């Protein structure tokens, strides 16, 4: 399998795009974006292999602009140069036919000339032959469910003005959870570019040790307001929902964002809160599907004030704003919440009496205009009294607004950020993750 997609690394894609651009007529412009991967997935249930699969795929998205009209066609690349070129030329014809029938696009994003870039991150992935034994033998005494994924991910953007951007990385993750006989669970993940058996064992043993806390009888918490410490994985869930009707400049301008009030200065967040798009870790490409390259850091929220939403060139044109090279969906790609001063060793002591929430589940806006979010606690969550863990809790539903828990109720952020890798794999594996500290919040509302 490996030979197929590697043929399309850089040189083959360059050759294909050059030939395609040569076919363009004088009044045509084109942007191409590529997304490909070779991934091994091992799905685990009850510390056994449920399913194993391997996928080799690559999609080229062709965006043609002709006479102020635009259309986009995505198609599979097969890894055979001549056949792919023939098919791509056929797709170009289809694009032209579509453009002839479509009305003008009032906010065209034209390709621009600019610097090109190439980044390749090599990895050392575990050997598939002994993978099941490596993953599962040390877990023999526990009930484990999860997904192992590893392989090569590739992204590229090219345009008819001569830009070429390329990004590839080899990485892996084992995203898993461990369960007690009473169905209480702890969540863990081991991820990176270089697999080390000893690092995985340490990760697994730490999770096993934490599982012991769940042998205590679970406590039912009544609805009400509680002091809560949200561990980084829980904070990451709040950050992720901002990509959906939150931080998008277009969503704000079209009155479909929870940040509308923040943008218009009718509400503010805590001066403790600062959020950036941070590309310094190199986890994701800095270029987007238009070929625009982001700054290494984009301040989004600075000390509680909205510095800038994510704005792509299309939104910028429509509303007369300044683009910060956001992607088409104006979603977060590599977000970072700045850490605070809460010492990790003192979290429970600082919490005193309240809830320690390690993970959240199924968040959704329950009142978008008010920035209200509902969701559930999940996995390792505890009731804490006088700085000591008393018992795990039954899962609770919350319903609370960002203007409260990231506003006046935000008491502190922990001193260290943690990278929570993005393990989303709808259609393809997602790159990157969310870097966040934990947070201490007062009077957080639980409803059910």
């Amino acid at each position: 399998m490996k030979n197929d997609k590697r043929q399309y690394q850089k040189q083959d894609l360059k050759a294909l795009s050059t030939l395609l651009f040569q076919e363009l007529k004088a009044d045509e412009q084109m942007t191409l974006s590529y997304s490909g991967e070779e991934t091994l997935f091992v799905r685990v249930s009850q510390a056994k292999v449920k399913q194993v699969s391997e996928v080799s795929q690559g999609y080229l998205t062709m965006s043609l602009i002709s006479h102020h009209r635009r259309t986009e066609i995505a198609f599979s690349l097969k890894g055979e140069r001549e056949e792919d070129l023939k098919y791509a030329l056929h797709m170009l014809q289809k694009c032209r036919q579509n453009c002839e029938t479509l009305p003008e696009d009032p906010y065209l994003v034209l390709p621009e000339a600019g610097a090109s870039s190439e980044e390749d991150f090599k990895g050392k992935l575990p050997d598939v032959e002994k993978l099941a034994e490596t993953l599962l033998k040390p877990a023999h005494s526990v009930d484990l469910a999860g997904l192992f994924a590893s392989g090569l991910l590739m992204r590229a953007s090219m345009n008819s003005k001569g830009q070429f951007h390329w990004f590839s990385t080899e990485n892996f993750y084992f995203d898993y959870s461990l369960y007690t006989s009473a169905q209480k669970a702890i969540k863990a993940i081991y991820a990176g570019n270089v697999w080390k058996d000893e690092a995985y064992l340490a990760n697994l043993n730490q999770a096993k040790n934490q599982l012991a806390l769940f042998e205590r009888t679970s406590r039912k918490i009544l609805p009400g307001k509680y002091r809560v410490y949200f561990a980084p994985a829980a904070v990451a869930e709040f950050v992720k929902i901002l990509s959906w009707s939150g931080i998008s400049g277009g969503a704000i301008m079209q009155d479909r964002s929870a940040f509308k009030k923040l943008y218009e200065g009718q509400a503010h967040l805590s001066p403790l809160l600062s959020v950036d798009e941070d590309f310094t870790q190199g986890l994701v490409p800095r270029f987007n599907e238009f070929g625009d390259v982001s700054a290494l850091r984009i301040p989004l929220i600075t000390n509680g004030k909205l510095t800038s939403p994510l704005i792509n060139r299309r939104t910028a044109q429509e509303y007369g704003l300044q683009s910060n090279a956001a992607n088409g969906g104006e979603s977060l790609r590599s977000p970072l919440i700045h850490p605070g001063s809460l010492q990790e060793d003192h979290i429970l002591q600082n919490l005193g009496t309240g809830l320690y929430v390690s993970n959240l589940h199924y968040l959704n806006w329950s009142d978008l205009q008010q920035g209200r979010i509902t969701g559930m606690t999940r996995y390792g969550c505890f009731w804490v009294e006088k700085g000591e863990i008393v018992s795990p809790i039954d899962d609770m539903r919350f319903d609370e607004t960002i203007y409260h828990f990231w506003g006046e109720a935000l008491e502190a952020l922990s001193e260290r950020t943690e990278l929570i890798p993005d393990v989303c794999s709808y259609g393809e594996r997602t790159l990157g993750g969310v870097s966040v500290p934990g947070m201490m919040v007062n009077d957080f509302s639980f409803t059910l």
Partner: protein
Amino acid sequence: MAKNLAQRLNNLHHKADWLGIREVKETTQTSIARNGKFENNSTTFDHGLMIEVLVDGQFAYCATDNMSDQALQVACDRATQLAKHMASWKVFPFNAHHRPTASGRYHSPVQHSLDKASAGEIMEMLVDATQKMKVSDKIVNRMAQALLIDQNITLVSSAGSEIHQHISSVASYLSTTAQEGTEIQTRTTGLSCHQGGIELLNRERLEREAERIGKEALELLNAEPCPTGAYDLVLAPDQLYMQLHESIGHPLELDRILGDERNYAGWSFVQLSDFGQLQYGSSLLNVVFDPTVGGEYASYGFDDTGLAATHQYLIKDGVLLRGIGGIDSQKRSGVPGVASTRASSWNRPPIDRMANINIEPGDTSFDKMIAGIERGIYMTTNSSWSIDDYRRKFQFGCEYAKLIEKGKLTKTLRNPNYRGVTSTFWKNLKMVGDSSTFEIWGSPYCGKGEPNQAIRVGHAVPVCLFENIDVFGGAL
């Protein structure tokens, strides 16, 4: 295509106990207009193969978008290798009898194929629909979207299976936002999803719906907030289908009950011992798995293991009878299931999924249902949804509601929400609407599985009345 693929399978060199190939060819066209103008037109042509092998009791999969004979052989060899590597750690010892031998065809009910309308004709319809939403200067944003999918699935196996299914579908969605001062309200049509041809994208219907939601968005600007308290709650089909999906569909999935989904989508409060025993809802509740409904979004003839799909009761007279799970989960659990092992595309292995999960209509007309309510709330069109990983505690929001007073619909209410616990909620089902209230809905985006898979589901439901439900408004 089927015959050719069967020949290609027979030409493969392999030592698997069973071998299957699933070829998927899919064209997806998305068209969006906003505020009377073009917003986006995109098409995806996707084509690939998934090889499935059974070796030493372990199923393994290898997917490729390279359609050459050489690539097919490489994929077959790789899948065989993976199965051997994992067989010592298999969760269950499967055998070749766990893949049925079947032949057949399925076609969506299509009057006119999707390619009969040009990209420009579809865009013009959507642009015009957004113009119809502009019923006032207070309407500040208008959007219209169409999603056309043409899918061919061919499944062949070393045991002689040969199945071809052609699925054609259309989804449409209109949305409008009204603003007055600081009050902002959005009203949509909900996502209308059906199988069929381009005839489903009907200009008159779109424009009629566009005008309706424009007027209702304005109406919501000056509506009272939804009150808080315990109320009789009437749910329209465009909300009830989401309630059904989240609190009956997902918890009945056998792979969830077996614990396979614990690390992602979640577990279930339902136990294997509950089948045939558990009173899931009131005796008025009848839920079916029915992939045979013409025009419903997830109709099909066979699942992706080749199992023939038939109408089955999941819940009858309120009692849980059967799970949503295909052959693999049925064998592992010992619980009766349905033909529901499905993959989102060629690049994912099939898992237990919903298809068409429907509530059968009852015998109460809408007018009679409302007339019998002293004080209640009627909610329409889902806007927010959330439920825990055991599918117990849920919360839903709707776009538009009416107060029910002394048997009549009276004031319009904004920001209506309700929350509850699954088992109590369905036992509080007091009336089920008749066939005149029965509507077909669905979604292209049901997410589940590791690796993740978004799949199309259908839900047909009547209007239903639930008593003593915790209702509240969304405002602070």
